[in-house]
């Protein structure tokens, strides 16, 4: 009996430790969210959204160009990345037995886990050395990060479509490609859109590749071959500034806007796909 009590006590201790691990992991999350809302909330007002970025240490101004820059770069990256990702995903799901599929799947994993700074220097070597620091180089880098994620989620979403739906369509004499494009894609629509949105949320916060491609700027968008501003770069630049009174609140303000964008997408997506968690 005594030994049994000892075993039970040990078991209870470990359960408590496991719950404690959960609490420890959630403290940073709560701290980050709370500090961003409190410190960023002070800096954010209407002019913060629409005015140009001031030089470091100057009062006034806002981060309008950074919001615009992030939207343009992420938008352009999605224009490149989404079609390529979705079509690759379709191939991997529809021809899953082919030898190309298994190699492509492996390389896709490699690309997903490639450090973002490596993608940054790759984009620098490929594009910046030719056209200079530019929006297109940044969009290329982000597209390279986005393609494997979209490919993966599209493949998974299509695999979830029941075989009976596909068989029913084929039995009606519809060609396979038409079945895929109209019926299978339609059933997998929700999963694919989820994947695209999550990948957009992911690349919106990327900083390292942008540092080596769009460089950052204080001004409004000036063309696709010019450097531009972006929210993550503004956060980084303001946080490195020595002027605590003017620039640090701006870093938190920019962080608040970025975090609202990203977590907004995440919360909406998780809410609409919650039945997956049972």
């Amino acid at each position, binding site marked *: 009996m005594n030994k049994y009590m000892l075993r039970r006590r040990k078991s209870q201790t*470990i359960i408590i430790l496991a719950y404690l691990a959960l609490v420890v*992991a959630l403290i940073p999350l709560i701290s*980050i969210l709370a*500090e961003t809302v409190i410190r960023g909330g002070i800096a954010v007002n209407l002019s913060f959204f629409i005015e140009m970025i001031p030089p470091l240490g100057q009062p006034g101004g806002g981060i309008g160009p950074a919001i615009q820059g992030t939207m343009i770069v992420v938008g352009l990256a999605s224009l490149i990345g989404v079609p390529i990702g979705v079509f690759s995903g379709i191939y991997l799901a529809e021809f899953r037995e082919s030898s190309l599929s298994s190699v492509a799947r492996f390389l896709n994993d490699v690309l997903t886990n490639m*450090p973002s700074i490596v993608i*940054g*220097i790759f984009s620098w070597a*490929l594009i910046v050395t030719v056209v200079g620091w530019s929006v297109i180089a940044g969009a290329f880098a982000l597209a390279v990060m986005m393609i494997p994620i979209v490919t993966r989620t599209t493949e998974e979403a299509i695999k979830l479509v029941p075989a009976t739906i596909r068989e029913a369509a084929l039995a009606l004499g519809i060609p396979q490609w038409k079945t895929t494009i109209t019926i299978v894609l339609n059933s997998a629509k929700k999963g694919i859109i989820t994947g695209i949105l999550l990948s957009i*949320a992911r690349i919106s916060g990327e900083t390292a590749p942008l540092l080596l491609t769009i460089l950052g700027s204080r001004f409004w968008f000036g063309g696709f071959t010019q450097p531009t501003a972006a929210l993550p770069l503004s956060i980084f630049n303001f946080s490195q500034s020595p002027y605590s009174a003017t620039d640090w609140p701006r870093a938190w303000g920019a962080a608040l806007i970025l975090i609202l964008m990203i977590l907004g997408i*995440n919360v909406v997506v998780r809410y609409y796909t919650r039945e997956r968690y049972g």
Partner: protein
Amino acid sequence: MKKQKHLPNFFSNLRLKSKIIYGKRGFGDLLFKTITTIITLNVFIILFFMTYKILEGSRLSIQTYGLSFLWGTTWEPFPADPSKMPSFGALPLIWGTIVTSSIALLIGVPISLGIGLALSEFAPKRFNFVVSFFVELLAAIPSVIYGLWGIFILIPFLQGNIYPFLQATLGFLPMFQGTIRGPNVLTGSIVLAIMIIPTISAVSRDVFSAVPNTQREAITALGATKWETAKIVINYARSGVIGAIILGLGRAVGETMAITMVIGNSFNMVSSLFDPGYTLPSIIANEFTEASYPPVYSSALMEVGLVLFIIALFINALARLIVWRALKIAKGAETI
């Protein structure tokens, strides 16, 4: 009468139709397959050009310094004596990356496994959904915001409360000696640990949940406590757990912005955890845009990228191999 007349007509019609459809299907399917195949090749093209461009960019540095780049310990793009060549050696960067990733794993893995166990074994299902959601939010926060939080919240907290205490109690160890600076290797490792927790805990929760219930039932029937059952689960899922840890390691090695902002960015072989340091990614992020001259400077940074690229490939292949083996074992066990 009517039916008989109709029947052959119907069949010949069907045959005709199927011919048309079949003909069209052949062409349409071929076209569809060709187009999607070409698009799927994107990943081959991207990785080919990535390898080529990074090799090409680091060629000058490889030719100048050869293998000594890997164990050199000086980083002088602009030597004080102008007659001397600039010299580059990456050993302190590699060392910094190894130290930060190992400490991050040391802190992050037990916490992540605890979370994985709590979610798959101990906690009620309802609770599971909410907590999984929060852990996933932790993964969604951008690296630069972790860095910002690290600079303004975590560093003052650690410097004020934790570090003096650590030095007072563990100061006899060389790694806890020296002046305490806020941005240092330990701060970087702690931020990395926070960032890899969502990855490792999500994967380990999934591999724990995939353990067949018969395993739990059998050991519970023998009178095991919850922890003894959990031990069986961990043992059963151990390859998956190792795969999860390697995924976390990959993330820690490649992490750039957050660690650049909190590690102090100083090029030296760190001996104390309270020293500022550098990692492979953070020197690229910090110096690349200013490294336009001399040409060998940007080439040396490219070679740092090449080292990182090779490490990432290696970690990936390893994780892949282990997960693949784990799946094979799991399948084998199911058939038994």
